[in-house]
C-alpha cells in the first residue's frame, strides 16, 4: 500500500464526482437530484484543497476557492429548494418525469 498522496485524493474526488453525476442522471426525485449536485460540488472542493496542499503550498488560493464554493453551494441549495417548493405547488409532485412540458 502506497503512502496516500495526491493521486489517491484525486481518485476519491473523481469517484465522488462521477457518482454524483450518475445520481443526477438516474434519479427521479428532484430533491435526490439536488443531493447529487451537492456531491459534485463537494468533490470539486476536495480537489481544490488537495491541489492547494500538494502543489501550491505557498498560497492559500485553493482554500479560499473552497470557502467560496461552500458559500455559493449553500445559496444555490436554498434557491433550488425554493424552486422545488414552487413546482410542487403547481404539479403536486416533484417527479422530474412529470415536469417535461417543453418537449416536442
Amino acid at each position, binding site marked *: 500500500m502506497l503512502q496516500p498522496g495526491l493521486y489517491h485524493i484525486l481518485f476519491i474526488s473523481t469517484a465522488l464526482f462521477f457518482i454524483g453525476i450518475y445520481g443526477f*442522471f438516474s434519479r427521479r426525485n428532484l430533491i435526490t437530484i439536488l443531493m447529487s449536485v451537492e456531491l459534485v460540488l463537494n468533490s470539486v472542493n476536495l480537489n481544490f484543497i488537495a491541489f492547494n496542499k500538494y502543489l501550491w503550498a505557498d498560497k492559500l488560493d485553493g482554500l479560499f476557492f473552497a470557502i467560496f464554493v461552500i458559500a455559493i453551494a449553500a445559496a444555490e441549495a436554498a434557491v433550488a*429548494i425554493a424552486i422545488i417548493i414552487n413546482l410542487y405547488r403547481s404539479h403536486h409532485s416533484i417527479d422530474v418525469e412529470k415536469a417535461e412540458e417543453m418537449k416536442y
Partner: protein
Amino acid sequence: MDGSTIIFYLLGIFTLVSALMAVTTRQIFRAAIFLLFTLIGIAGLYFWMQFQFIAAVQIVVYVGGITVLIIFSIFLTQQAGDKMPKQKIKRQLFSALAAFCGFALVMVQIFQYTFSSSTTSSVSPTVENIGDRMLSVNEGGFALPFEAVSMLLLAALVGCIVIAMRSVKATVNEQKKEIFNLKD
C-alpha cells in the same frame, strides 16, 4: 503502514460507500442521511489533510445547514416513508455507463500526468492566515471575491423568498378549491 494511511483509507471508503448509497437507495430519507454521512466523511478528509478551518466550515454549513434544509424540504413536499418509484433499467444502465466512461477517461489522464510541486516554502492554513488573506487587498488577497459572494448571498436570500412566496390570490383560490372539494 502507519495510522495516517489507515485512517485515510477508512475515511475514503466510508465516503465513497455513503455516496453510492445516497444515489441508489429508494427511500428518500435514507438518501438524505447517507448524504449526511458523505459530507461528514469529506470533512474528515479535510481534517486528515490538516485543513481544519475548512473542515469546520464544511460541517457547520453543509452538514448543519444544507442537509437540514434538504430534510425540511422532504417533509414539506411528500411522505418521507414511501419508496420512490424506480427508474427504468435502461436509463440506469445507460447513465452508469456514461458516468463510468467519464470516470475512466479522467482517471487515465490523471495517472498519466506527473504532478510536480513548484515551491518548497509553505503557508499553513491557520485561522490567522486565512483571516489575514481574506480581507487583504494586496497580492493574494481575497477581499473582492468576499464582497462579491456576500452580494450573491443577499441575492439568493431575496430570490428564495420571492420564488417560494405564495401570492395572496393563489392562496385565496386554493382555499376556495379546498372548501368546494370538501363539500362533495
